Structure formats: structure tokens, C-alpha cells
């Protein structure tokens, strides 16, 4: 989204952008992270993702046929919801979990609010938080990378929360994703490739991700350590769902502010909440709750950050 809406005289050039084009571009940008997830956690990760995507699309189709609305399953938005939901699940979950999560995401999080463009909250995160509150046992059992079976391991953030000494995970391992975690959040490298694609094509702007990540880093640097100004900010950026959340979920077009100023406020808010939950909260990770809470605040941010209309006071 551009900062200014410039109206000039004709002729105008028509740009071939549409909702479905952007949505499918986001799907493409998520492929590297998905591939990385499959390489790290095995084929289970692929099945979970496929099941989530198919359930999301089928739920959308069923509801739209039932309520006699226009069928919008081909615009890719339900596919994205399915992928993002799966990326927020551990790879070892039973396969009915992504099905229920996807149904909840699409039915409650999206269609009940009126479908695409109307949802207050990011549907994928609504589904994830529902699953997290309902079946915490499955949602916090993470498969050990490259073991491809029942070996489990805690995520770096969970280990940190429990006060365990981390088993010498280097920043480079964190960057490549060689640690326990959700399917799509572990490989920072793959996520950054997808994010760079979206940024270069102009589908997302830097405002929300930059504000989000920098705020989290600064806050954790100040308060995250034993003393003030000694927090391990790089560890916190590279672990957990921060990168996935900042680039792919906090930049959702519908549930985030419209103006650049609003987006900066949104990003800072997300960063503060994430850091506060990580340092003092009961959960090891706070990205999904932070984004959902700021989604809820978006109407207020929009109201106070309206751009000045040209010619008005």
C-alpha cells in the first residue's frame, strides 16, 4: 500500500493486480518455508499442511454453498489461511487437529464476520489460538528435527522459559531451523526468502515487520536479561514465530491499519506485547496473542491515524 493516494489526470495505466493475484503470490512466498519444514520434520509436515489447506477450502466452499454466497475459494485466501494455520502447528499432531483448526478458522474467524475482507482477526491465528486453548498437550509436543519420528524436543523458547540451559544451539542453527518448533516458523532463511519476494513485489511494506521486529529486539535487549541492557535479542528474533508472524501474519491486509503511521503503531504494539509475554507471561511464545490483540485495536488505530485529506485543515 502506498502512503499517498495520488490522483492525476488521465490517461491511467491499469495494473493487473487483483485480490487473487496477490493471494497466490503470498502462497508462492510461503513455499520455501514449507519445503524447509518438510526437510526438517519429514513428510508429516507435508500431510499436516495439505490437510489444513484442504479442510480450509472445503469449509469455505460448504459455507458459501449453504448460505448461497458467491464462491470465493479460488482467490487463494482460504489456501493461505490453511497454510498459515499448518505452519503454526507442530508436525507431530494427529491429523484431525488441523481439520478442526481449519474449520474453526474459516467458519468462526472468517465467514461468520462476512467473508473475505470483513474479518476482524487473522483467521489462521484464531484457529491456532483455539487449538492452543483446547488441546495444549498436542500443541506443545514438538518433534526433534531430522529424527522423523516420535523423538520430541522442546522449542528453544520453551526451554528458556523452564530455566533449562540451552543445549548449545548456535545462532546459525537457529537461522537454519535446526531445532524443535512449529512447521513453518523454524527456518528463518526460507521465511526471509519469501518475505523478500513479497517486499520486492510491493505486496507488503516494511512498516509493520520492521516496527515489530525492532521493538521486540529493543525491549528484550533492555528487559530480557538478568540485568538491564543484557537481553539476548538475537536469540529471541531467531527463535519462535516472530519472523513468520511479523512478515506473513501481522501484514494481513484486512485486520491491520491502512496508513503507514497506523502500521508503525501496530508493529510497535505487536512487538511490545510479544516481548512482554515472552519475558513475563505464562506462555513461552506470544506472537499469535500479540497479533490478535493488535488486530482488535486496529479500528481505533485507524480512527486516530487518518491521513489529512488534501485541502482540509
Amino acid at each position, binding site marked *: 500500500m502506498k502512503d499517498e493516494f495520488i490522483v492525476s489526470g488521465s490517461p491511467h495505466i491499469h495494473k493487473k493486480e487483483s485480490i487473487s493475484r496477490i493471494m497466490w503470490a503470498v502462497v508462492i512466498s510461503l513455499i520455501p518455508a514449507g519445503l524447509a519444514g518438510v526437510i526438517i520434520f519429514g513428510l508429516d509436515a507435508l500431510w499436516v499442511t495439505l490437510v489444513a489447506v484442504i479442510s480450509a477450502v472445503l469449509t469455505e466452499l460448504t459455507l458459501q454453498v449453504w448460505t448461497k454466497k458467491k464462491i470465493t475459494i479460488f482467490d487463494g485466501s482460504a489456501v493461505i489461511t490453511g497454510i498459515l494455520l499448518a505452519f503454526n502447528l507442530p508436525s507431530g499432531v494427529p491429523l484431525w487437529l488441523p481439520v478442526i483448526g481449519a474449520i474453526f478458522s474459516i467458519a468462526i474467524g472468517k465467514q*461468520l464476520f462476512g467473508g473475505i475482507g470483513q474479518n476482524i482477526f487473522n483467521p489462521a491465528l484464531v484457529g491456532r489460538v*483455539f487449538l492452543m*486453548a*483446547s*488441546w495444549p498437550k498436542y500443541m506443545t509436543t514438538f518433534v526433534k528435527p531430522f529424527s522423523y519420528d516420535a523423538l520430541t524436543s522442546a522449542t528453544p523458547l520453551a526451554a528458556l522459559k523452564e530455566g533449562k540451559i540451552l543445549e548449545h544451539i548456535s545462532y546459525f542453527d537457529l537461522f537454519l531451523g535446526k531445532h524443535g518448533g512449529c512447521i513453518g516458523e523454524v527456518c528463518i532463511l526460507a521465511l526471509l526468502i519469501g518475505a523478500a519476494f513479497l517486499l520486492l513485489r510491493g505486496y507488503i511494506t516494511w512498516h509493520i515487520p520492521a516496527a515489530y521486529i525492532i521493538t521486540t529486539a529493543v525491549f528484550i535487549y533492555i528487559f530480557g536479561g538478568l540485568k538491564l541492557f543484557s537481553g539476548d535479542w538475537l536469540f529471541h528474533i531467531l527463535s519462535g514465530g516472530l519472523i513468520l508472524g511479523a512478515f506473513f501474519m501481522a501484514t494481513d491486509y484486512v485486520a491491520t491499519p491502512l496508513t503507514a503511521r497506523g502500521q508503525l503503531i501496530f508493529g510497535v504494539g505487536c512487538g511490545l506485547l510479544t516481548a512482554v509475554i515472552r519475558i513475563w507471561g505464562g506462555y513461552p511464545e506470544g506472537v499469535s496473542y500479540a497479533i490478535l490483540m493488535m488486530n482488535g485495536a486496529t479500528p481505533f488505530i485507524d480512527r486516530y491515524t487518518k491521513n489529512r485529506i488534501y485541502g482540509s485543515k
Partner: protein
Amino acid sequence: MKNLVKEFTKGIIKENPTFVLALGLCPTLAVSVSVANGIGMGLAATFVLLGSSVIISLVRNFIPGKIRIPCFIVIIATFVTITELCLKAYSPVLNRALGIYVPLIVVNCIVLGRAEAFACKNNLLSSVFDGLGMGVGFTLALIMISALREFLGSGQILGYTLIKGFEPVFVFGMPSGALLVIGLLLGLFNILKNRKS
């Protein structure tokens, strides 16, 4: 007679206190974790509604308009105290489960709402049927919500396991689950109402 039946039935569907008037949601959210609690709360509120409707409609011509609300509260509080003492004496388990929400019936907006909107303007008999109808409507709503929540949240109804191997959806045992269930049922009620008209 026909009028009295109408006074009674309107509280169950057309003016259901929970799903249509959206009154008394605070105790509804708090106690609807299990069916037993829901029934207990519903019956307690029905008793208070009935008692206060009787007394208020009897004394409605003696209460000065300016201080009617304090008078209603005193009458309602009397019945709430009776309920609470009875619960403590005969069903301490239920009393502990309902906790602060029994004394809070004093400020339940269904009870005060019926006193203000109906009992202080109508004769004894219609007030009795109005109070009973509202109480039954509230109890039925509580049973619906708490049955859904207890089944989904713990896989049981009234303590009996219904389906073996069902993995409870914990969220329905939490306050957020109550909001979800009430919201969805409210929506369902609105759909049914729109379809009728």
C-alpha cells in the same frame, strides 16, 4: 386465561432473557460450566423472580415513584437471602459451586428488569405468570448453554461420560468458551427469528 398463557410463554422464546433481551449475562457466563450448576442457578433465579414479582405487584400502589428502585432491591434482596440460606442448609455443594453468583442475583438485571417493566404495572396474576415464564426461559437458556459447554469441555453431561475416547475441547470449560457458545446461540436465535418474520 389466554393472556396469562401469553405472559408465561413470551419469556421462553419471544422475549427470552438470555438470547433475545441479552440480560443477566454475567451469571450465565460464570456458572454455565456444568448442567448441574446451570439448573441450580436457573431455579434460584426463578424463585427470586416469582417471589419478588408477587410482592412487588401487591405493593405497587403504595411505593412512591421516586424511591421505587431501592424498594425493589430490598424486596429482591429478601428473597435472595432466603434462597442463599436454603442453598447453604440443603445443598452446600451447589452453593459452593455457584459461589458469589447467588448473592449477586440481587443485582441480576432480569429480576430488576421484570420488577421495573412488568410487576410494578400489572396485577398479581399476570405478574406471577410473567415472572415464572422469564424464570423458565432463563433456566432453559442456562441448560442449553451449560449442556453444550459441559459436553464439549469435558465430554460429560451431569457427570456421565457420553462418548468414550472423545478428546475434550478445553476451551469450552473456560470463560472464552462461554462467550463463544452464547454468541453462536444468539446468532442462531436471530437466524430463526428472521426466518419466521
